[in-house]
């Protein structure tokens, strides 16, 4: 009890420090408002707002139809370019897709001779290219069939594709979860790590160490206080920005998502404490932070699917709490999963957090004496 009250009172000091730091407050505000929404709306690899150009050598009613059939949100309104400019423009990355409609295209089709359309895709954006080519193909086929007034051939076996959990496939749904997690990770690591380093730079850590406090209490105070600040911002951002403003529905229980976030904050802030213990100066801390946060954000499954990671990366990314967060976050937010489904992920995250915390406590006193 006394132990906990010490952690509580020490934590109130942390809260005051964070809340009185104007610059940090601005960063936090920016991250959880515009940061979240801008990133959410731009993320994902789906074909969205793809830039298209058409080299129309036919200039027939059919080619005009194809032109108007490509429209937002999948495609931008197509531009018309000359065939000679095609390579340069693709080299500059101006267009993702260039469709070349050959001369006498419509005429050949009417004559039943068959014709070929060339679709050039900039395959440096791998998944957008392959998906987009498929979309363009079906759009062209549809327009040609309608133009030729060919009857819809009844398919013998119809494939009904149904997406569970995000039927419309709106990228911003998943994107908002990922960007919330990214901001969460970055800020809680920075806050806790910097709080520890600041104590060391100002010499106040020595003051704490000569008081009847254990390293665990000092670390726990930082974890709960900074975690709480971020939890409040996270919740506000989830409800106000993601749910209300961006209109992303959450299928499962918000309480469960909150519980998972609390566990995740523990793990992430333990990483912050660990980095703050290892680093000797703010510059070193910043570099370590980049080395940690980049993989946490990029290998979490938010930017590219975890299943695609090669086997030798998988064990490494399993150690990242963010990967588990994405897994249970998706399950709760979109699939409406309950506690019975997500508890293993919770357990793994809590376990990872405990390991990082234990490691920093081991290094704590050693780092103090080296710094003294």
């Amino acid at each position, binding site marked *: 009890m006394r132990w906990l009250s010490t952690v509580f*009172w020490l934590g109130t000091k942390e809260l*005051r420090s964070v809340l009185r*730091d104007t610059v*940090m407050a601005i960063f936090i505000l920016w991250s959880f408002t515009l940061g979240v929404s801008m990133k959410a709306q731009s993320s*994902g690899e*789906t*074909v969205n707002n793809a830039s298209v150009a058409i080299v129309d050598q036919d200039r027939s009613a059919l080619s005009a139809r194809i032109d108007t059939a490509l429209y937002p949100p999948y495609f931008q309104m197509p531009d018309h370019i000359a065939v000679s400019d095609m390579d340069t423009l693709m080299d*500059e*990355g101006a267009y993702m897709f260039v469709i070349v409609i050959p001369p006498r295209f419509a005429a050949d*089709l009417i004559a039943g*001779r068959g*014709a*070929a*359309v060339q679709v*050039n895709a900039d*395959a*440096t954006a*791998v*998944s*957008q290219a*392959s998906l987009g*080519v*498929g979309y363009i193909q079906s759009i*062209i*086929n549809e327009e040609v*069939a309608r133009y*030729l007034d060919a009857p819809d*051939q009844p398919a*013998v*076996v119809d*494939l*009904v594709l*149904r997406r*569970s*959990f*995000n039927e419309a496939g709106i990228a911003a749904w998943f994107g908002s979860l990922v960007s919330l997690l990214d901001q969460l990770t970055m800020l809680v690591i*920075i806050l806790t790590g910097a709080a520890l380093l600041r104590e060391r730079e100002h*010499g106040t850590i*020595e*003051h704490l*160490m*000569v*008081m*009847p406090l254990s390293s665990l209490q000092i670390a726990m105070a930082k974890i709960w206080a900074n975690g709480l600040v971020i939890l409040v911002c996270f919740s506000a951002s989830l409800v106000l920005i993601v749910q209300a403003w961006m209109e992303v529905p959450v299928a499962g229980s918000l309480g469960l998502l909150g519980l998972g976030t609390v566990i995740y904050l523990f793990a992430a802030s333990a990483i912050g404490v660990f980095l703050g213990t290892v680093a000797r100066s*703010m510059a070193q801390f*910043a570099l*370590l*932070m*980049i*080395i940690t946060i*980049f993989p946490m954000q*990029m290998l979490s499954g938010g930017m*590219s699917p975890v*299943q*695609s990671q090669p086997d030798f*990366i998988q064990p490494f990314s399993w150690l990242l709490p963010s990967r588990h967060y994405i897994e249970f976050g998706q399950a709760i937010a979109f*699939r409406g999963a309950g506690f019975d*489904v997500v508890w293993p992920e919770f357990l793994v995250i809590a376990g990872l957090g405990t390991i990082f915390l234990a490691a920093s406590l081991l290094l704590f006193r050693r780092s103090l*004496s080296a710094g*003294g």
Partner: protein
Amino acid sequence: MAGSGGPSVALIRDLRHSYGAAVALDGLSVEIPAGRMVGLLGPDGVGKSTLLGLIAGARILQSGEVHVMGGDMADRRHRERTGPRIAFMPQGLGKNLYAELSVFENLEFFGQLFGQSRAERRARIDRLTAATGLNPFLGRPAGKLSGGMKQKLGLCCALIHDPDFLILDEPTTGVDPLSRRQFWELIDGIRAVRPSMSVLVSTAYMDEAGEFDWLIAMNAGQVLDSGTPEALLARTGAPDMEAAFVALLPREQSAGHREVEIPPFVPGQSTPAIVARGLTKRFGDFTAVSDVSFEIEPGEIFGFLGSNGCGKTTTMKMLTGLLSPSDGAAEVFGKPVDARNMAVRHRVGFMSQSFSLYGELTVRENLSLHGRLFHLGAAQIAARTDALIAQFGLAEYVDARAASLPLGIRQRLSLAVPIVHEPEILILDEPTSGVDPVARDQFWELLIDLSRNQGVTIFISTHFMSEAMRCDRISFMHAGQVMVYDTPAALVEAKGVDTLEEAFILYMEEAGAGDAAVEGARMADGARIATDDQSGTDKGALLRFSVSRMLAYTFRELTEVRRDPVRLVFAFAGSVILLLIMAFGMNQDVDEVTFAAVDLDQTPESRSYLASYYGSLYFTEAPPLATPQALTRRMQEGGLSVGLEIPSGFGRGLRQGNPVEVLAQIDGANPSRAATIESYVSGVHNTFLRDWRTENPAPLAAPASVTQETRMVYNPTSESLMTMGPSIPAMLLIMFPAILMAVSIAREKEIGTITNFYVTPTRRAEFLLGKQLPYVAIAMINFAMLYALVVLVLQVPLQGSLLALVIGGLLYAFAATGYGLLISTLTKSQVTAVFAAAILSMLPTMSFSGLIQPVSTLEGGARVMGLFWPTSYFMQISVGTFTKGLSLGDLRNDLILLAAFFPVFFGLGLAVLKKQEK
């Protein structure tokens, strides 16, 4: 206010200066006589440093007039002309020195800033170091010098260009008496040779005041009085300067002041409060404390004296359990000091050199937090806090934040904090450094009360002999060893001298046969420090942009980076690891799609339909499920990406041409993955139908159709790595150089070496460019490392122009470091600098530069951010040269746009960076 009668070097009229709401100078007017040694006297926080900074031209003038050497310091042209004739040594031990650089390198750097030739620099450095006794230490880093030696080196750096006006801000604060005496002898020696040089020195040591030709006494931003020391003594009728100063203070401020009286110490209990036996602490091969032993009686005031860096602080830290001794033992109350012993911690209070207060908490919050942490009850805390606030005279500051308190008040608070829990031992590390005499005496009254009336044992370290005299016993420490400990009177007697200071110096000279003796012997050469050789420097050249001065900054920065390689190791090793992990890990190829089916039909046709999925490389088979409900449940658990439901009657429908529907459920939580899986599923489905039709021809003929020729340009096999390989360096090559760069100027501001930029003839462009070049070089090394990995390890071939890639890399390095530089000029602290650099660049770099989402498909704010971010263009160049096989000409536009970033960042940095402090 008496005039000096002679010519003046500086004339100040109605000078006002404030920092926010705090007024530092309040309508100050004074005349500083030329060719004299002028002392600026006053306690901390009365505006001495502000005044000196303004006279030296290092601060921006807010209001009033400052004329120095016949010109107005508000005029930039005059500042540029007179700047090289003034030397300014800011307050703080070694504040203008570069800790990682050696003595020689520090002097070299200052010489280069003043445009001296190599031979001239060499000659001057030899002369200066010979005179100051620094000669044997030319190779030692400035950070490893003792306080006294740091100040001598600072003086040498200030004197390297033969200034006509030398301004020293508290050069002897925190320096032990022996080094202090040597420092003043040195100044006297120089003045003997160059009598025309004007010297202006500020000091908080009143006992030094007698040495000056002319004194200016300052308090609360105003001049109290000025004149020769004799005149001041005569006017106040005081016996010494300390008393004279107190007499000059306004009545309300000196009212509380009275002579400190110490009741004699009567030893009580027999068990000593603190015992040290053979305490030794080694850091690597350096022995900080060597075999230190002493005993301190309960209720005793025990003083600890010695030069800076002699091991006082380390010894104290071992006694508190902050450091564990390498050898020997420490006991408190008869029990060994153990970091885990919480009971002992309750009985000890510690005040470290850097006041351990939380600046962002108020006075009351600091006190009650401390009580909470020692588990005092709420009522007890309230009572104790109130008592301490009254006792320490903190009533009017209760709700002020600790960081905003004047130094003297802050120091009182930091004494109040460790005694909230009424400890029996108080360990104080230099608690009175830089505090004015009145406040110091008040502080001592509190200490005496604690010791004599409450039986608290006090262990204190100090540089003030007047304070040492008040201790019951004192010890002299030198080079990690306690030379002697006894009562002050006994020590004076043992050496047969009059004062403790003389006794101390004798002991020090005895013990420190090494450097102290060398320095003493060289002192006679002090005269050689000054020179009349003015030939080498072309004064006109000082005013123009100088490549050599810029390179001086470059070499200095490079040396500093080389001395602290950890940052570089982090940056290089970190970027390599990140490249490998992310290039392999950020795989956008969707495969191993887990797939399960509910086959309600169980006919040869349905099995053959499913077999076509199992046969696909993309799908991984999971155990089939019995019911659609089970399928839904598995999907919810996230174990399945695709669930296929084949209705009963599938086989019959296929054979007879009756329409049947197969339902494919796809996990849509990750939309991009879902879209790809959709295309796989339709692909397999259509292939199955086509094959089935071929085998079982339908009556209808196929209609005329369009064939689509798909050309996957640049990356025919659609491998993620082909794009990710060259993309990731583009991301890393902005983050690391920008963060490394962002620290550089903010760090100089924090440490104080930025003053060298203010007071030397360095131009802003020289400073910025000079500091940037090393980081451009570092970025280029990183560039080479990363792309070598891309080609050799990731096996992504470079198909286009290497020249375009290298030119792009160079432009990018300038842009990235330029961005870091801009952030660095905008921010005051390193923390803000690194986080601003990291947080602000992370979003545009990761999301808006075409790493995942091509720039051409971005919209709105994201598009704009992408367009104004250099990574977008370098990403084009990197992916362009590698995957698209583009030539220099193809990338012309991207290169031109990328080139535009550096001048913009640099120009903004120039505009933001001020040549003077605010």
